[in-house]
């Protein structure tokens, strides 16, 4: 039986070494492109490559087969050097049908490789993809290296004798394509074979058929001499340590688990399903054994309200959502602000307004996050910038909430939430302490709910079950010491100022901005949140090719690092790059009115490409 054969190795002697490569798998939303991409990514990461991924899929779960809007894709960038983005241009496109080819061709530069499944280029599918002539025959692909393979029928041939039904046979075609691409990049099949054995442990027939097809694809590529020689991408030079691949949403979940453990608290998540945040709920619900409690509520409001209740009762409480859900949570965030209870709200941004683009990325919730509540209701705002550092910022958001007794909004976005990259594993002993501000038992009787720490202005946390600290909190304005309801005009003004000052003083507890590239000069690039990979790569490219450009990236948005104004003053021009119409530029213009903030914006549901950034920066450098 095929499964027992030795793992194949390329028979060709010469392996062509590449610095990096971008591979994109595209097909119908039911074709298994996400799984295929993940397998290629994990195998490459285990070989020591730096990797970055970008899944791009439609909002429909199973859109009609062959349709243009039903195309699902997974792009992975593997490298010997540092990789910070999934890459602009595709080196190898694997297109499982005409619609997938049509919608992805513009990302493939001339001369690059396209693998197509010729079995899918039927009249019907060509019509669905709105092709008037067959692109495989009309010469429109002459500028590419097109590898035409009857993927579906070859996959079926490999397993014809197994007695599987038609559907099951056709479903394995993604493994054939994966096998071919594994050969092209000299990757072993071991990781995927182990994965299949585990995933289908109870269905040995499915394991066998998938492995047979995977190997058939690999051997086919080897025998057919698809390319003069297979490529390889050598391991990357990364900071020493133990690594694994993480997706942003999972990293966020783990960051909270670690924070709860460090703080000595149980973790409570109150949440309502919403794309693209639900994976945090899924991940945390797997880990109930660490005292992790996940509560899937009846709506977004109940999600945050249950978390506020859990916070009142002494848990590390969080809620997870995306833009539309955040809009519903606004009133409750105000309650957590006035009751000064610790809670973290995670906003995994997507395209808006309204339902917008649920599966696409955007940074257009910034103003909602900062100001989307009634009254003066400041909260701490932090933003993760890569899939891996979602772990760090979830951890830090929890630490800030617990130590400063305030809601914290953690912003990520669909791009880093679903993207993956190597994460240098941090263990508990490497993480900073978290000290919840619990009252001390000896304070019982003399304690007042709104008495504050002189430095941070944080109040103390007394939770039900602690004798002698019975008290009431609530949404009515509080007396600044006793916490009793107070309508005294001067008290309200004072409390409003205290709530603002408390958040401002967090600047004393966060790191200063570090400027990448040129430390002063003509142009400063400013970014925040999930655009780090693109901006960092583009600025590096500029500086390597001779132009001196500086770059700062904001992870702390409210308050901002103390040296922000000083950094701005070192540059002649400042350009704020963001995936919205200019919300951060608007905020900076208000906070630092002495500077002019130029804008570079993209609102297509997609991340920046490196080249469009480089072009913009060059244009700004040339302009007077």
């Amino acid at each position, binding site marked *: 039986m095929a499964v027992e054969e030795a793992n194949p190795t390329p028979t060709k002697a010469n392996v062509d070494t590449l610095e990096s490569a971008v591979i994109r798998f595209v097909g119908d939303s039911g074709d298994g492109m996400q799984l295929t991409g993940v397998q290629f990514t994990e195998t490459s*990461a*285990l070989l*020591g490559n730096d990797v970055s991924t970008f899944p791009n899929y439609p909002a429909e779960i199973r859109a009609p087969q062959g349709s243009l809007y039903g195309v699902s894709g997974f792009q992975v960038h593997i490298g010997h050097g540092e990789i910070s983005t999934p890459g602009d241009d595709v080196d190898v496109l694997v297109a499982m049908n005409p619609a997938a080819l049509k919608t992805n061709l513009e990302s493939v530069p001339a001369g690059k490789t396209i693998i197509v499944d010729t079995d899918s280029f039927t009249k019907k599918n060509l019509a669905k993809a709105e092709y008037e002539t067959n692109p495989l025959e009309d010469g429109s692909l002459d500028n590419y290296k097109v590898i035409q393979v009857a993927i579906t029928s070859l996959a079926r041939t490999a397993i014809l004798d197994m007695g599987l039904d038609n559907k099951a046979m056709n479903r394995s075609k993604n493994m054939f394509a994966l096998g071919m691409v594994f050969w092209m990049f000299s990757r072993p099949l071991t*990781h995927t074979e182990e994965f299949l054995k585990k995933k289908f442990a109870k269905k040995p027939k499915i394991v066998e058929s998938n492995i047979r097809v995977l190997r058939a694809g690999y051997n086919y590529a080897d025998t057919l001499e698809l390319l003069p020689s297979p490529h390889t991408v050598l391991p990357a030079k990364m*900071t*020493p*340590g*133990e*690594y*694994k*691949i993480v997706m942003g949403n999972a990293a966020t979940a783990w960051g909270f688990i*670690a924070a709860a453990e460090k703080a000595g608290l*149980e973790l*409570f998540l*109150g949440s309502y399903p919403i794309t693209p945040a639900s994976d945090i709920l899924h991940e945390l619900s797997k*880990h*109930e*054994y*660490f*005292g992790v*409690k996940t*509560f899937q*509520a*009846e*709506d977004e*409001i*109940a999600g945050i*309200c*249950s*978390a*506020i*209740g*859990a*916070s*009142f*009762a*002494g*848990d590390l409480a969080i809620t997870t959502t995306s833009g539309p859900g955040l809009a519903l949570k606004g*009133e*409750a965030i105000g309650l957590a602000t006035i*009751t000064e209870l610790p809670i973290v709200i995670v906003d995994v941004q997507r395209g808006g307004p309204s339902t917008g683009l649920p599966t696409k990325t955007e940074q257009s919730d910034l103003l909602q996050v900062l100001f989307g509540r009634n009254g003066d209701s400041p909260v701490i705002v932090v933003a993760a910038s890569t899939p891996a550092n979602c772990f760090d910022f979830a951890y830090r958001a929890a630490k800030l909430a617990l130590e400063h007794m305030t809601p914290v909004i953690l912003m990520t976005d669909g791009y880093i939430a679903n993207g993956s990259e190597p994460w240098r*594993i*941090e*263990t*508990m002993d490497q993480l900073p302490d978290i000290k919840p501000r619990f009252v001390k038992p000896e304070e019982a009787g003399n304690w007042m709910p709104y008495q504050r720490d002189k430095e941070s202005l944080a109040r103390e946390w007394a*939770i*039900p*079950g602690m*004798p*002698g*600290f*019975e*008290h*009431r*909190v*609530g*949404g*009515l304005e509080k007396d600044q010491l006793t916490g*009793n*309801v107070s309508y005294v005009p001067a008290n309200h003004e004072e409390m409003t100022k205290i709530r603002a000052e408390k958040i401002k003083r967090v600047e004393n507890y966060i790191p200063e901005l570090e400027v990448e590239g040129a430390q002063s000069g003509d142009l400063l690039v400013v970014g925040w949140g999930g655009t780090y990979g693109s901006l960092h790569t583009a600025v590096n490219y500029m500086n390597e090719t001779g132009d001196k450009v500086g770059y700062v990236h904001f992870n702390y948005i409210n308050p901002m690092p103390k040296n922000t104004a000083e950094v701005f003053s070192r540059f002649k021009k400042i350009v704020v790059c963001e995936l919205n119409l200019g919300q951060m530029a608007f905020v900076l213009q208000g906070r630092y009115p002495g500077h002019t903030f130029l804008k570079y914006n993209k609102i297509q549901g997609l991340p920046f490409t490196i080249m469009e950034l480089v072009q913009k920066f060059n244009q700004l450098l040339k302009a007077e």
Partner: protein
Amino acid sequence: MENPTYTYKDMASDQEVRWCPGCDDYVILRSVQKALPQMGVSKEKFAFISGIGCSSRFPYYMNTYGMHSIHGRAPAIATGVKLANPELSVWVITGDGDSMAIGGNHFIHVIRRNIDLNLILFNNEIYGLTKGQFSPTTELGMRTKSSPYGNTQQPFHPGTLALGANARFFARIPGNRPKELTATFVEAEAFHGTSVIEVLQNCVIFNDGVFDGTVHKDVRDDQQVWVEHGKPMIFGKEKNKGLRLNGLKLEVVTIGQDGVTEEDILIHDAKEKDMAMHLMLARLQSPMVMGVIRAVDEITLGDRVAEQMEEVTSHSKFKSVDDLLLSGDSWTVE
């Protein structure tokens, strides 16, 4: 303090109570303060969570842990409190605007999940704090600030709504009956699961006398059937009236007339799982049924969560957070 001794005074905060003079809320407040010392629960373990409205000022007057939250959301907040610390005695204080309108969703879902907490619904059939608009329980045709020509919206019936959401415990008590209120609150706390207590609460300013047809002392004996588990449903000034089934409907009969004997009167079974009879009792308008209409013990959300967590923990391959962080395929960079 395993069995602390308190009086109602220990349960009162130092804050001045600011309801209108003559409001039933005073009676309910004092009834709760008298009930708590009878529960064998240490004072610091009580948490009172309210929404918005006149009744929701309640937690400020209790010398316990409490939160006056946002409109309609108290059941959701209380759910978080109870899940975070199952040892607490958690009370939701809400009104008909708070939990039948803006918080209707949370009201039905807290009941559906059967989380072990007590919910007191102050039903005065009007918006009081916003000064007199009709509420979801206001009767058709009533003239209010926002229905000057008469209310055109069909009202909700709280008992029907609660039972429709599968309430395991539902009681109804008039707001002018302190002893019965206290006893019912004690019974609700002892009940394991979500307890809903509807209090017919008279608003002296905007809806004065709305329940007079049921609660006024001149009519109450003939207009209220107080039910007790295992006892016949007998009522009336002369204790000679009772409820019995006629086909699929309840009817009022008089013992000694038309051959009716005490034997014919229905015995109240609050623990019957099938809620058909409880629904009929809850919906009866004249007379109206008072007391604990339904009290069916079932596993609570908290029990299930605890059970699952224990089960999952015993099978987990991860014994520490480090195990989790280090799990899966990893590689070392030298």
